């Protein structure tokens, strides 16, 4: 499950290469759950392909097709009817058919019905993109971020005037938010285990795969967010990176002692593409573009982890 309300018209604005259609499956299920029926417009593939794709992500739409889920396929039949509300799996093929008249047609349609649509933002004319963007009050931006450890997927929503980014992943059980999974590292004796114990409501040491390294693990709820903390065994965090992969969201480097070693670890974390936070009470620590949070201020530290 992800934290998106589908009760208004909205556009999932995806960079090319991002699978926005999964959000459409989620929207359909949401619509069926709340209103008992939904209308799906497929613009760029066969209906059977979409149903198969949806199933691979855990959305069994086939059982609703032709019943509560009415499907209009413009790819196979080239007809678009305007039942309400409409869930469109991809907008760009419709724009390509009538680049100049499309936005005004869309605006007319939006005045009559609610539309939820995915849109791959090909490099269309800027004016068209601006008009399309302004036609929807609710925009959710979808991006891939390529890091040395893999591809991270984000959706971004404007909350209180600020764009907030949430990491998500697609699984065989649908879309899920990637929880706040934080790697805590630092030089020997920097207090990693102590910090995790102090921050956590639940704490444990995991003997990962009954093998050669133990991980300090803690969970804490903060302002309604669940945060998982993973302490590195010693100074190396390769095993943890391999274990968590792109599911780890941030790295906290403790830098109270052995500053040169800490600096080395900060650079390593940055090179792997992690959002990195320094936790330190040492006034001599200063690395450009990396935020330093007071280690003694646990509340401030937790607020930076969500």
């Amino acid at each position: 499950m992800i934290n998106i309300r589908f009760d208004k018209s909205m556009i999932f604005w995806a960079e090319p290469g991002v699978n926005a259609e999964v959000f459409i499956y989620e929207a359909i299920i949401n619509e069926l759950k709340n209103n008992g029926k939904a209308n799906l417009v497929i613009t760029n593939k066969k209906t059977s392909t979409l149903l198969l794709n949806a199933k691979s992500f855990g959305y069994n739409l086939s059982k609703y097709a032709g019943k509560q889920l009415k499907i209009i396929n413009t790819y196979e039949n080239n007809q678009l009817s305007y039942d309400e509300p409409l869930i469109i799996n991809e907008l760009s093929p419709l724009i390509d058919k009538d680049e100049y008249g499309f936005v005004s047609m869309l605006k007319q349609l939006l005045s009559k019905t609610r539309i939820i649509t995915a849109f791959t933002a090909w490099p269309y004319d800027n004016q068209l993109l601006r008009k399309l963007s302004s036609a929807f009050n609710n925009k959710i931006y979808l991006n891939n971020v390529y890091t040395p450890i893999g591809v991270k997927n984000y959706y971004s929503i404007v909350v209180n005037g600020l764009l907030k980014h949430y990491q998500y992943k697609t699984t065989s059980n649908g879309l899920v938010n990637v929880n706040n999974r934080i790697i805590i590292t630092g030089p020997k004796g920097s207090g990693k285990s102590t910090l995790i114990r102090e921050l956590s409501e639940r704490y444990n040491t995991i003997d990962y795969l009954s093998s050669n390294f133990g991980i300090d693990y803690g969970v804490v709820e903060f302002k309604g967010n669940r945060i998982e903390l993973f302490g590195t065994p010693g100074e190396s965090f390769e095993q943890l990176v391999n274990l968590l992969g792109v599911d780890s969201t941030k790295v906290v480097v403790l830098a109270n002692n052995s500053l040169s070693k800490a600096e080395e670890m900060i650079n390593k974390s940055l090179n792997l593409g992690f959002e990195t936070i320094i936790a330190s009470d040492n006034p001599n620590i200063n690395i450009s573009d990396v935020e330093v949070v007071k280690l003694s201020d646990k509340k401030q530290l937790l607020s930076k982890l969500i």
Partner: protein
Amino acid sequence: MVEGIRIGIKGLDSVFTKAFPPGNCILLNSPPMAEISIFGLQYLYEGLKRGEPGVYITLDDSPESLRLKALKFGWPLINAERMGLMRWIDVYSIHANKDVKSTESIIRIDGPVALTDLSIAISQVQAGFHKISGVYRFFFDSLSTQLLYNSPNTVYRFLQVITSKLKMSNGVGFFTLRPAMHDTKVNMTIRHLMNGSITLNEDFELSVDSLPVVGDTRFGKLLLTRQGFIFT
């Protein structure tokens, strides 16, 4: 620092040099019916022999028949497919009403209009290759088929995004085009979106229109032998 690649087709290093830089998209103009797919298979196979991953994006034939075609020239691809080094993006089979599904090595796309799905497939392949190699090869056959089903503007937008992704991720390879099927403006705009262009005529005579490197020669002839193409 990623070193340049050797094209590998005998004699063709004199055109592309022995270290052709990654991050380049070359337009390969050819007449219709030329056995250009053999050129693509050979180019990818030469890379696989060197441990360089490769992806064949096909709009004109099924991966299964291309795989067989490669085998006839002595280029077994199946082991590389098992190792994740060789991938196919099949934009042909479902559109041709074949009852097929995606596999570990083949991503099937509904047809040439499904550009969003094609861009997602290319991103998936790039992400997989990124884990195993700093450079990879691609062969896209053909832009002409894509132009049959999409407006030129749609194809230009697609190419603008895809070529920049291929360049940024150290891909190196060819987009094929049959210029006789399109008007001059289309041919020139597509050429503008590429880093270089070479042309094959009906007698397999090859000429360099432009390339990002300067080789020893700009003209020659491709001969199709039982072992594939050689350049003289």
